[in-house]
């Protein structure tokens, strides 16, 4: 019996069935792909805005592509292994099947050579690499959805940025592995960066909740030294307590003076002659040379230095200069 009696057309069909299986994908089982991929012939496709939904679709599609490649690598490995067994079996049964010497030699050599071909293409290694990347990406998708079950079509949150980063880092890990390089610690950290509940909320540009900051104020704040509690003597503490009481007593006068000074200072009619007006007020209150003729110096003098008589006099004079 010859190999030909196995019915050549059927043998070819069976072989092609196995081979073409590598071209199929299992993406129909992808949760996100199942729910969101638009039809290829849709007429209302618009340029997508950067959003959480887009990040999820991107992650889903990359996972789908990697799974296709993983499936291809797996099927290559499985077909070659199966073929090796079949060839070895046929070679072993050569006597019973009355194969010629040449046929037996071809079968034996083919059987022995297949592991070497597997080694050259490293079908097993590639399959595992793709499988790991798909796992990393799908874990990222699930982690994103654990924090936010309603991904926005218009807002890109920090967690979506992290998802994008994890997908990209996973691809880098695959590329490095396939080229025989060990992925760096940085690659692995990026591929596994955690998301957070706060990262799921919409933020404006510049606010990073679970990522490196883009807001220079945050770094400045983190570097800011903390002003520690000051320890003072008992006498100083009692002096401060007296000052609090005095502040309460003088509060009414302070409010009146500040209000009057603000009216004066903001009077449009006095905009170009304020210094002259303040000098005149100080002169009338007999304070020339004691206080600089500007609003802030007068505020400080009134609230810190002036005695009760000076405070009363100063308030009266300022009020006299107000326009009715």
């Amino acid at each position, binding site marked *: 019996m010859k190999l030909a009696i196995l019915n050549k057309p059927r043998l070819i069909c069976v072989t092609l069935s196995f081979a073409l299986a590598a071209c199929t994908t299992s993406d129909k089982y992808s949760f996100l792909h199942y729910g969101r991929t638009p039809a290829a012939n849709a007429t209302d496709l618009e340029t997508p805005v950067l959003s959480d939904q887009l990040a999820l679709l991107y992650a889903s599609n990359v996972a789908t592509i990697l799974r296709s490649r993983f499936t291809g690598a797996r099927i290559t490995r499985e077909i070659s292994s199966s073929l090796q067994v079949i060839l070895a079996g046929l070679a072993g049964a050569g006597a019973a099947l009355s194969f010629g010497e040449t046929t037996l030699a071809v079968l034996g050599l083919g059987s022995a050579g297949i592991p070497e071909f597997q080694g050259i293409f490293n079908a097993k290694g590639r399959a595992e690499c793709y499988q790991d990347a798909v796992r990393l990406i799908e874990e990222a998708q699930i982690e994103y959805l654990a924090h936010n079950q309603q991904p926005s079509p218009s807002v890109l949150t*920090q967690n979506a*940025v992290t998802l994008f980063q994890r997908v990209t880092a996973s691809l880098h890990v695959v590329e490095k592995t396939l080229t025989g390089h060990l992925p760096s610690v940085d690659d692995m950290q990026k591929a596994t960066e955690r998301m957070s509940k*706060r990262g799921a909320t919409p*933020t*404006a*540009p*510049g*606010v*990073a*909740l*679970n*990522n*490196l*900051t*883009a*807001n*220079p*104020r*945050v*770094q*400045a*704040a*983190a570097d*800011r*030294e*903390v*002003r*520690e*509690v*000051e*320890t*003072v*003597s*008992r006498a100083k*503490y009692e002096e*401060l*307590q007296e*000052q*609090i009481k005095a*502040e*309460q007593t003088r509060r009414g006068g*302070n*409010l009146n003076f*500040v209000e009057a*000074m*603000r009216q004066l*200072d903001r009077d449009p009619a006095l905009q170009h002659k304020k210094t002259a007006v303040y000098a005149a007020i100080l002169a009338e209150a007999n304070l020339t040379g004691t206080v600089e003729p500007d*609003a*802030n*110096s007068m*505020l*400080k003098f009134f*609230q*810190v230095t002036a005695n009760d008589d000076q405070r009363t006099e100063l308030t009266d004079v300022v009020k006299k200069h107000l326009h009715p």
Partner: protein
Amino acid sequence: MPTPFPLAPASDADSLAGLLNDQELSLGRQVLSVGGITTGNTAERINSVTIEFNIDADKLKRLSVAVVPEGATQAEATAAGSPEAAQNIKRAFSTFIAPMLHTAELLDRSEVFLKSDKVEIVLLRETGPVAATGNV
């Protein structure tokens, strides 16, 4: 020239912010910083504000005070047993303050007394959105 003034007691962050905003709105005193003062006796604790007289202080954007949460304070970072632990505490502080700094700037970070309890606070002044730099 900065001038210190003692403050009346505050029961919480909002009441402390109210006292500080009052300095600017009513008294023409622009707030620069705030801090706690004590003799060491737990019954003798007050807060103090450092100001600069500014007649237009009422035109400034308003102040707010936020208590730094446990696990993010400088005191904990200082007491941390390892550099990694201290770094985690600093990272927690950054995470805590980052959302606030989008529309505010940090004026001061200090220890004060709220209801006579020592807490770490951040003093913020409302401002416009910050311009982002670098990549997120």
